[in-house]
């Protein structure tokens, strides 16, 4: 009897370890493969591991005029502009949706969700066609607009939640003490909502950094962001450069995963989408 429970415990333990190892391999295997490619100098079939390791590809792409440096800077520049455009639109909208007497509030909130609810490719190829008539294709501004439209639902919804989480009595107190509407907003409401606004800025920044489809239709071949560089080098079979670009794109994403909880507090999170 004791023997039987012991052996069944042992079987359970082994299954658990095996399942976890398999899962770990499934999740980290592809990532490891990319890391190997990022430091491989020479690697071809049928060798299971790179024949030479080194950083000559890193040196090549990170030279001041190297293509990765250029793509990285244009990605960051576009992402920053996208954040500015999105926040300039989302902060007033979020404030109005959280505090104002808004007719059809629920429908308006849903409207911002629409771009996520339809397959993006079909919409983006027509955006590219419309932009062509406006001389916006192949320009940074065109790409920024497409990225901002992708991020708008997150920007508006999180900003709305952030303003809704601000205690209305503090604003009322400021008003009672004679502060004007604008003064109350700048000195009381906005600082209190700032962590939530920061979270939405980070969200939008990452969406822009990782965006591919819109850039592919609107920006290519003139605007080369990091995802575009990743794509073209991968299609040309240059796995080192594709893997190095992947690695650069992973850094902000993983950092986001580790730090988002600091910005997106539970009280704001609970109000997202409501």
């Amino acid at each position, binding site marked *: 009897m004791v023997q039987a429970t012991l052996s069944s415990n042992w079987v359970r333990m082994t299954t*658990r370890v095996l399942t*976890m190892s398999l*899962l770990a391999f*499934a*999740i*980290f*295997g*592809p*990532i490891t*493969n*990319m890391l*190997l490619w990022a430091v491989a100098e020479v690697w071809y*079939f*049928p*060798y*299971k591991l790179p024949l030479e390791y080194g950083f000559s590809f890193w040196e090549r792409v990170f030279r001041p005029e190297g293509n990765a440096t250029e793509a990285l800077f244009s990605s960051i520049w576009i992402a920053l502009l996208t954040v500015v455009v999105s926040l300039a*639109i*989302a902060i*007033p*909208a979020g404030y*109005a949706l959280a*505090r*104002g*007497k*808004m007719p059809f509030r629920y429908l308006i909130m849903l409207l*911002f969700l*629409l771009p996520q609810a*339809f*397959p*993006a490719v*079909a*919409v*983006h*190829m*027509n955006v590219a*066609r*419309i932009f062509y008539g406006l001389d916006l294709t192949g320009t940074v501004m065109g790409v920024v607009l497409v990225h901002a*439209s992708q991020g*708008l639902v997150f920007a*508006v919804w999180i900003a709305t939640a952030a303003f809704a989480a601000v205690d*209305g*009595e503090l*604003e009322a107190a400021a008003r009672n003490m004679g502060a004007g*509407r604008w003064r*109350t907003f700048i000195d009381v409401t906005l600082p209190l909502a700032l962590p939530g606004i920061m979270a939405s800025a980070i969200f939008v920044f*990452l969406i822009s*950094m*990782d965006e*591919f*489809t819109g850039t592919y*239709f609107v920006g290519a071949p003139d605007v080369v962001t990091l995802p575009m560089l*990743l*794509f073209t080098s*991968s299609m040309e079979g240059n*796995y080192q450069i*594709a893997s190095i670009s*992947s690695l650069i*794109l992973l850094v902000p*994403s993983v950092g986001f*995963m580790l730090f988002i909880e600091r910005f997106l507090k539970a009280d704001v999170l609970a109000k997202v989408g409501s």
Partner: protein
Amino acid sequence: MSGQSMSVGPGRMGAILLVAPALLMIGFLFVYPFGYSVVSAFTDNGEGSWHIANFTKAVEFYSKDILFTIVIVSLSTVIIGILAVAIAGYLTLGENKTAVAILKWLYRWPLFIPFIVSAQLMRTFLAKNGMMNNILTSSGIIEPLAAQSYLDWRGIVITFVWKQTPFVALLVAGAMASIDRTTIDAGRIFGASRLRILIELVVPQIATTLMVGLILSYVVMLSVLSVPLMINAQSPTMLTVDMAWRINSYGDYGVANALGIMSYLFTGVVAWFYLRQSLKDKGA
């Protein structure tokens, strides 16, 4: 309370003015191009009148890809659903604290990895001489000569499942954490196995969350261009690749938009099922 917060907020006119830029943006960058795509699908290619020639051409050329897209996306959705419930279920019902902690740390990794990076990871991992085959042959599970590339429909499904399962699992685990524990405990007292508790007691209570997560994933998979483009762009492939090809190689917006309308319909069917179900739930 609400009276006070209203007195500090903008009035009706002010609120509308503050939201106007956001609405204009959605109008210009989504509603207008969306309408454009519908008109283009029914009119483009020289003739000024309304016609369905683009659709007949799209079906004639791409019927195989239409089917292929539906199969890939449906299969991926089903696998994601099963894996997400398994992961979230173990996080909720697992008795071994170490295993639960490891799983919790492990499963989230792909969540914030961009699609294009996932596609590149899988492009190397699943290739004929990729790490997966290397490990399988080195450990003697398959013969070196039997190693084959998975960069076809299987690669697309694997990449979608790898990338989207953590998202659905995260939502479902959150829902499972907030359900009433007494039913679970009751099930335990009556000696039901954990699998039975999961399927018969837990899953029905989180079905709506699971459905929302799966629908969002389904739409995302129908929209992603980078994954099919990088994993398998040869025929048969997904509609997103066909749309890009139609435009970049032929400038043929008519057929591309006809394919686009079909992809709207695929999401429309799912949205309709979802709405019908949630109306039923509310009626019951």
